[in-house]
């Protein structure tokens, strides 16, 4: 079965990336530590008023996730580029999109682990009260992370091979993520409060639509990007 072969390729690439990260650990530890450091700095810059911090919590957590997460995406291609392993990977039989899907899955696991550290740190540092509707908050977080990882992986496949990759990736990625940032922060704020205007649902639908649109677009565009 063709799709089973493709799925095996996707898993193999994701497993390779995750294993490399787990063996080295240095990459993950430093990226996650950076996320927490940004939270501390934002707390110092916006504090010490507890009420002000609580209001800024959602935005702070998302900014910390964006700024530290962006470092993870370049890494996922850099490891292969440094050892000249990207060309052999491209020469393997099978469709190219499986490489993108594998990288995507690997980055998704990486970012999920990172968010599992950054979000609790934000909850503690900014004094957020966990509402009864916390599963929906996790859903918003997951949808936002998917949007971030899809575009982050796609742009990193170019930026990591250009000059000035450190600055190019955030420059390309962050303006594209404006809808994700707005939707995720507004929906989270609504869910943390009373959501009197029932706006969270609309924002969640926007996040789902964004994820689907760019998942499709990047899968189509990746073939053109990776062969160059």
């Amino acid at each position, binding site marked *: 079965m063709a799709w089973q072969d493709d799925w095996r390729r996707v898993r193999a690439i994701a497993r390779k990336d995750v294993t490399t990260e787990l063996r080295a650990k240095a990459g993950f530890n430093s990226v996650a530590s950076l996320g927490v450091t940004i939270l501390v700095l934002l707390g110092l810059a916006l504090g010490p008023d507890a009420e002000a911090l609580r209001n800024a919590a959602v935005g702070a957590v998302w900014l910390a996730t964006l700024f530290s997460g962006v470092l993870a995406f370049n890494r996922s291609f850099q490891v292969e580029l440094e050892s000249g392993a990207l060309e052999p990977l491209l020469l393997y039989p099978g469709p190219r999109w499986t490489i993108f899907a594998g990288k995507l899955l690997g980055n998704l696991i990486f970012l999920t682990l990172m968010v599992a550290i950054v979000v609790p740190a934000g909850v503690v540092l900014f004094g957020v009260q966990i509402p009864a509707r916390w599963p929906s908050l996790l859903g918003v977080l997951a949808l936002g992370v998917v949007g971030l990882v899809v575009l982050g992986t*796609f*742009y990193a496949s*170019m*930026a990591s*091979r*250009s*000059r*000035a990759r450190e*600055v*190019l990736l955030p*420059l*390309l990625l*962050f*303006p*594209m993520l*404006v*809808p994700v940032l*707005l*939707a995720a922060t*507004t929906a989270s704020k609504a869910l943390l409060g009373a959501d009197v*205007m029932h*706006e969270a649902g*609309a*924002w969640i639908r*926007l996040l789902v*639509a*964004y994820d689907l*649109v*760019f998942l499709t*677009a*990047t899968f189509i*565009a990746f073939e*053109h*990007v990776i*062969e*160059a």
Partner: protein
Amino acid sequence: MSLKREGKLTSSTDHLRDTQAARPPRTSNWLAFVSFAAVIAAQAYAILTSPADADMGHLQKIMYVHVPAAWMTFLSFFVVLVFSVRYLWRRQENDDLIAASAAEVGATFNGLTLMLGMIWGRPAWGVWWVWDARLTSTLVLFLIFVGYLALRAFTEDAQQKAQWSAAVGAIGALNVPIVYMSVKWWRTLHQPPSSPETLDPAYTLGLRINAIAMLLVLIYFIRRRYEIARLERAVEHMAEAAAMGGG
């Protein structure tokens, strides 16, 4: 061309003479003359005929540059989208160069729109900036295409540059309506929505002819930038050929 007088280059350009890239495109100045004359005439007409606005007075005149510039911004990014997709489809160098030229000109008009908007906003609203849906999404659009131009600047290989920027241009343009919608929701759900702009018939003709004049400028700019890009490519091809054949 002084380069041609050197013996090495002359021999190596002979076999390139047939290729499209080696032939410098013909430039013409009539479009420059017509488009700038049209802008002067259209501005003069609009400024002389339109009455002073009830609230804003003669401040309203800035509309005749600001609004057409905004339209030209969106039009040029639509050109980027079309030619990026066409490049990915047919892989012809010219499509890439047209998309890049339109992106550069579009970013210029985009910057102009933002600047004029702020100059207008300061006396009209009392502030330089408001986080309104149109303003914010125009700014985000500007940032997206700054990224596009940075990607081109940081990529050496011509084919990489073309394929990557085509993908980034198409995906960036795809995001424009989503950005606009999300900023609009973000605003309307939290602050009272700004009232829709209704334009008095006394101003519409002036605005329309200014838009046409600005369109001519846009076409002239993109065409001129495209000609320069073609010349740059021709020089690159010649230098490559000289290095391969003459060295």
